[in-house]
């Protein structure tokens, strides 16, 4: 397995995630797409760590996972709260901060 395969997979995953964030309305799906993008980045990081034989990439990947976990907690709580008050999880309906 060459590095290129890992990187291509990561690129495909990132693209799927980015497109999902841009085109989907459901906040949960958007959220999952963001996670997908984070994980594609993690994949890239560990790939390079392996190829160069250093631990830096793995270290950053751990940080990303920790931050992602925290972010999931807060993000899901916000989505829950919005859903409870507005009976909808569409990101297009959440525009009050515009004003």
């Amino acid at each position, binding site marked *: 397995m060459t590095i290129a395969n890992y990187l291509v997979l990561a690129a495909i995953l990132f693209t799927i995630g*980015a497109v999902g*964030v*841009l*085109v989907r*309305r459901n906040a949960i799906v*958007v959220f999952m797409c963001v996670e997908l993008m984070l994980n594609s980045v993690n994949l890239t990081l560990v790939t390079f760590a392996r190829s160069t034989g250093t631990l830096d990439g793995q270290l950053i990947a751990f940080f990303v996972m920790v931050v992602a976990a925290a972010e999931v907690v807060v993000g899901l709580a916000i989505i829950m709260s919005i859903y409870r008050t507005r009976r909808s999880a569409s*990101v*297009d309906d*959440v*525009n*009050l*901060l*515009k004003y």
Partner: protein
Amino acid sequence: METEAATGLLSASWLLIALPLAGAAVLLLGGRRTDRWGHLLGTGTVVAAFVVAVACTVQLAGRDERSVTVDLFTFIRTGNLDVQAGLLIDPLSAVFMLLITGVGALIHVYSIGYMAHDPGRRRFFAYLNLFVAAMLLLVLGNSYVALYVGWEGVGLASYLLIAFWYTRPAAATAAKKAFIMNRVGDVGLALAIFLMFAQLGTTSYAGVFGQVGLLAGGTVTAIGLLLLLGACGKSGQFPLQAWLPDAMEGPTPVSALIHAATMVTAGVYLIARSAPVYDETPTARTVVLAVGAVTLLIGAIVGCAYDDIKKVLAYSTVSQIGYMFLAVGLGPAGYAAGIAHLLTHGFFKAGLFLGAGSVMHAMDDQVDMRRFGGLAKRLPVTFVTFGLGYLALIGFPFLSGYWTKDAIIEAALDRGGWSGWVLGGVAVLGAGLTAFYMTRLMLMTFLGRPRWEPGVHPHESPPSMTAPMVLLAVGSVAAGFLLVQVFPLADWLEPVFGEPEEAAHVVAPAVVGVVVTAVMALGVLTAWLFVGRREVPATAPARVSPVVVAARRALYADTVNEALFMRPGMWLTRALVWLDNRGVDGVVNGTAAALGGSSSRLGRAQTGFVRSYALGMLGGAVLVAGALVAVTTA
């Protein structure tokens, strides 16, 4: 003119100004607490000032050198400008301080009765005191700057007193008119002072008069003309005469003190005081003569047509001050005559105004002479005192006006040449017109059948009002004889104006006296033919000759002022307002509108859609990544 430092009582002459000023301060700052005794304090300070003035004059008369200065303090010292505040007491200022405090004290006493029922009596006395203080500063100051401070002070007091009944629109308007027209003159005076400082570096009388001979002729003429402009504004002389009759909206004691006896004669004082300047500039002196001659005719003609008793007296004042200007314009031959006429005029015109005030007091503030008539029996004291003032004014033989007005006419004739004949003729004609309008006033007010409005019950005024009238009437009778024959004013003023030269009489004085008296009798007779013989209509006749129409419109002075100054001024302000709205505001508002518009357009980019923001971030990230790649590979 030699001066020396004051000693003895003369060094305390600053009390003259300080006393009334302190009175004004107490009354204005004390507020309602001083209501009960404010008028007594106000009168007391002026009476005290009169006592000081008499004492100072006696001391001055006892000295060899009749010109002393009192240095007070440094007023302004900056760069080359060094103005010392000081007083100059010489025969001329002594004459004025006696007139101001003497007549002022009488009028204060009169006002106690006249203003007894006015709720603003304390304020009235405060302003009167302020006026007396400013007027004394005007005549006692030893520099043009001190004179200017007093000059503006009397202007302020005049404004406040004309608008004393400020709830009346007419009074408020008249006060503004007086103030603005005075500003026109004051600009002239201020420019004259600037010119003196620029050219001579000093503004004190001693400094200016000592060096005026070194100046170029044009500069001296400019100074003379600018001083004349200031004098015209303050004294209601042509072309700035229109404010004075309107100023009669103020209470009558104000008309008597400020707009007849003292303030309006400040212009005469200014020109007489500036005699050394005018000695250097025959041109400016000729203009003074012309202004005096024109004004004395305008005042006399307009005085014939008005029915408002105070306005007739006001135009009479304008006319009489015209005589004084004529006199001081004649130069050394006329100074003493002009000042003498100023003094006697101060007596009889103040008396006449107080009499008019007494009549108004009796007639419920009616001023229309067509509504008077037959008041002689109801107001005997007023009638007699007013009658004596009237006789003095028209120049009845051996009363005050006869002596002083004849002296002016003689001096005008003695000028010689055609100008002497013209000026003398104008002065004699003015005397005839004076006799006409004053007789008309007497006939319409005191004689004939009553034409009173229903419900008016005339009654004589209280003693506090009649006593000053009696004293002024005595002055009207005797002052001229005393000042011309017994204690010649010309001798007293000699240290100021120099030795009066022996005039080469063109016409013998006796002939002048007879002619003037004949013209005066003619005026009286004409008035009797026109007014006394028949019943006076209660309303002014509408069908009259164009001359009367013009005179009733004050010879179109207001019309001319409006056409020449007011309308172009209004056009100018309108153009400026337009420029301000469209030009200045346009730029400012345009900038604000452009910024506001562009920001609201930019604000539309904030859609509120999370996904479009995400697209923006993606685009940005791609751009940054692309740039990074481009930079690293290049």
